[in-house]
């Protein structure tokens, strides 16, 4: 069916991003906004904004029934969930299916499959996609047996966890039993699911993910990879494509593995298959699949010239597949910095408030995705992302040069930002060389005595 009006169940820069594509496609937009976001930039840009509740996400953006009622009440054909909030809640996809509203994303069953780490691992194994050596354990005795075959160091992870939560590292086998018991108890309390599994700990790993698009009929294409190894406490800060320094056979193997995995579950829509690339073994393992549009999607868009939001909408609307693998040609390199309202000098503490003045960069190859204009509020209830500054160039040095210039010409007054930290990242020799592992930011902070000195206080 032709989608004429889309309900946007999100806020911030991704709401602006979705509105931009809808406008280009001639689709009307209705935005869900909490009382804290009534005057936001997306609220001004949307054709209509409905207030769905108070600022707390649990009383507004996370309410499945309210979101669906608002979409139905405003006669929308489809709901775009953005990322975060309800984007990977099977309950929303299911309620959409039951009420004849299109969910712009995968099916409820696919969200459930990839959201359960054990199901996802099993799907990976059947698709012949390598997984990190490990497996589920239901008793401390079982854990010890498995751990002996995996070897230490290893990780104890919660089945229902994510983003580093519910994870414990074990360096000595004799500490294993206690770690399993503790992780299981914590997981039960935090996620309502006490199941845990063990996984080999890769000492030097890169986070490389592959963007895929599936038509829901079993046909999947990939749009190349993104390197997201520049992370602080599992939060990505800088992302780039292509991943620097990967051998071509490894790069191809990653792409093919992502496609095999998504094909295995007949994935529908835009998704990302995440891998851990083991630098020492030149091997890779499946980590998880994210069943949504990702924050870092712009780097892929810049090198492929494909509008991923438009593709999501087309697939949800049941359009005939417009793209084949032969249509995908990456050109050049793109790097993205996430500008957050957080203070690197104070332990990266969030810094909500009113943005009094702001100047975003412009220039050749520069793209800025943001919802922040002079006078914008940064409410304390949500994530602190202010903007994504992305630079594209024919090669990595050119893109990096453009990005450095863009970051240095950005000015935000009224809230603290991590711009100075980005300047330090982009100027670092290790980053310049590229291909570093996920320990990069920790090492960088150690090289920056002022920041680490304050960090230990904060």
């Amino acid at each position, binding site marked *: 069916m032709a989608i004429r009006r889309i309900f946007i169940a999100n806020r911030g820069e991704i709401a602006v991003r979705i509105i931009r594509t809808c406008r280009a496609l001639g689709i009307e937009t209705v935005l869900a906004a909490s009382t804290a976001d009534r005057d936001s930039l997306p609220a001004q840009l949307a054709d209509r904004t409905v*207030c769905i509740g108070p600022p707390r996400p649990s009383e507004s953006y996370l309410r499945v029934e309210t979101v669906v009622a608002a979409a139905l009440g405003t006669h929308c054909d489809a709901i775009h969930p953005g990322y975060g909030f309800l984007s990977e809640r099977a309950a929303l996809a299911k309620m959409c299916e039951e009420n004849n509203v299109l969910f712009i994303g995968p099916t409820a069953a696919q969200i459930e499959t990839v959201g359960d780490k054990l199901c996802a691992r099993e799907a990976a194994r059947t698709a012949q996609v390598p997984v990190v050596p490990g497996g589920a354990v239901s008793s401390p005795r079982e854990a010890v047996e498995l751990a002996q075959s995996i070897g230490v160091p290893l990780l104890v992870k919660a089945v229902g966890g994510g983003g580093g939560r519910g994870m414990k590292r074990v360096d000595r086998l004799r500490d294993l039993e206690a770690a399993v018991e503790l992780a299981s108890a914590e997981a039960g309390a935090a996620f309502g699911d006490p199941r845990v599994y063990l996984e080999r700990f890769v000492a030097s790993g890169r986070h490389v993910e592959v963007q895929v698009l599936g038509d829901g009929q079993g046909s999947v294409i990939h749009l190349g990879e993104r390197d997201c190894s520049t992370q602080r406490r599992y939060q990505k800060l800088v992302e780039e494509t292509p991943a620097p320094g990967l051998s071509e056979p490894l790069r191809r193997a990653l792409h093919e593995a992502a496609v095999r995995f998504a094909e295995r579950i007949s994935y529908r829509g835009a998704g990302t298959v995440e891998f851990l690339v083991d630098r020492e073994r030149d091997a890779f393992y499946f980590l998880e699949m994210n069943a949504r549009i990702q924050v870092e999607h712009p780097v892929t868009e810049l090198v492929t010239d494909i509008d991923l939001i438009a593709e999501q909408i087309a697939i949800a609307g049941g359009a005939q597949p417009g793209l084949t693998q032969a249509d995908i040609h990456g050109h050049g390199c793109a790097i993205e910095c996430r500008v957050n309202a957080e203070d690197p000098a104070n332990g990266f503490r969030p810094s909500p408030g009113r943005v009094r003045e702001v100047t975003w960069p412009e220039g050749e190859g520069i793209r800025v995705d943001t919802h922040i204009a002079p006078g914008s509020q940064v409410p304390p209830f949500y994530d602190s992302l202010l903007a994504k500054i992305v630079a594209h160039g024919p090669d990595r040095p050119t893109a990096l040069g453009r990005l450095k210039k863009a970051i240095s010409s950005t000015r935000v007054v009224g809230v603290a930002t991590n711009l100075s930290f980005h300047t330090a990242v982009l100027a670092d020799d290790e980053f310049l060389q590229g291909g570093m592992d996920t320990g990069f930011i920790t090492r960088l902070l150690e090289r920056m005595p002022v920041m680490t000195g304050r960090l230990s206080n904060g």
Partner: protein
Amino acid sequence: MSLTAADVAEIMRLVESSSFDELSLELNGLKLHLRRAGAQIDAVPTPSQAPPVPQPAPTAALAKPDPADPALHEVTAPLLGTFYRAPKPGAPPFVERGATVEPDTVIAIIEVMKLMNSVRAGVHGTVVDILPGDGALVEYGETILRVAKSG
């Protein structure tokens, strides 16, 4: 939009052939209420059976608060949903203009995905105005009732 006698006859024919005993329709100030002769009134409130009122997407902004008058209290929607003035289609409304309300007087129902939520006045006073139309989508915090406070 208005309804001709032929339209009404056609609607009656549709109701006759449907499984519904009752229909209430509200369009731009026009109200039409039909009940099949001898129909039993359902004991369970089912306002969700009221047909949806067509609404263009870019509707007017929220109701503007009345300036001044401190004695005038605005009751706002405690949640987003479909606003119903009566416990079920065709039943008398919970309150009319001029009615006296107590803090726990139920003044409306707001439906969210088949879940009916009673809305209470929260104040003592006299109803001055009821703003949303029956079956309209109300947003969180939207003014639904104006009450002249007493006491």
